[in-house]
């Protein structure tokens, strides 16, 4: 929350810089080979950071939440909020499905490290004919 005060003082693009950092960090976790659950968390961070990209520009200093009442005249932009609500829901749906997959992978392979699983697959391909 301290950061918010800063963001207004430091200048117009502070929020964007933060957004970019969060996005890239999330993306890095996802594409670096590693633990399957950790990758899903990274995917979550990647998606979440996009929320800021949408929401931050909709904020008007001196504006208020877009719930109409007679006391206010300036409202922040409601449309990005709607879009991001949808995006959050999509995000959690993806996470649930991803985790269900990880659980199944763990049952089938006995581990959840990407490297190990790919090694197991390669080994299986060498020794036995591919069974369909």
């Amino acid at each position: 929350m301290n950061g918010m005060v800063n963001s207004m003082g430091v200048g117009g693009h502070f929020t964007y810089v933060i957004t970019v950092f969060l996005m890239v960090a999330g993306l890095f976790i996802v594409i670096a080979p590693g633990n399957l659950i950790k990758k899903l968390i990274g995917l979550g961070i990647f998606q979440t950071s996009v929320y800021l990209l949408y929401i931050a520009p909709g904020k008007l200093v001196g504006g208020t939440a877009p719930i109409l009442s007679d006391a206010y005249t300036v409202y922040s932009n409601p449309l990005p909020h709607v879009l991001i609500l949808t995006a959050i829901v999509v995000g959690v749906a993806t996470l649930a499905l991803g985790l269900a997959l990880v659980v199944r992978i763990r049952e089938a392979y006995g581990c959840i490290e990407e490297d190990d699983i790919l090694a197991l697959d390669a080994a299986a391909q060498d020794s036995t004919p591919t069974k369909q």
Partner: protein
Amino acid sequence: MKNDLTLRVLAKLLIPFILLFALYVQFHGDFGPGGGFQAGVILAAAVIFYALIFGLADARKVVPEPLVESMMALGVLIYAGVGVAGLLLGGNFLDYFVLDPNSVHGQHRGIFWVEVGVATTVSGVMLKIFYMFVSRGEVDE
């Protein structure tokens, strides 16, 4: 944990309030923050809370799995049904104006039912996912 009297009494006391809160979030969404999705999540949370304290078997008795699965589907059907109702009454798909002679009331009615649909599906899906994860663990042990 299942036999802790304090917890059980507390839960019995709290859960009605959580359910009430869910309903409040559902129907107050027009005026304050909230709506079908959040209400659905809270509703599911109440049952999950119940399951944690009283055990999965008891929760399944209160909210059986087939019901949960039907809720998932029914929510979508309610939502799409509102859209089709608009079609049948001579409007476009998801046209709320035609749902009532007074177009503003029509809008209110449309939004109400749509939010009911969202809450139904969301709470159904969240609960179902919870049940699935927990019962998967039972196999493993």
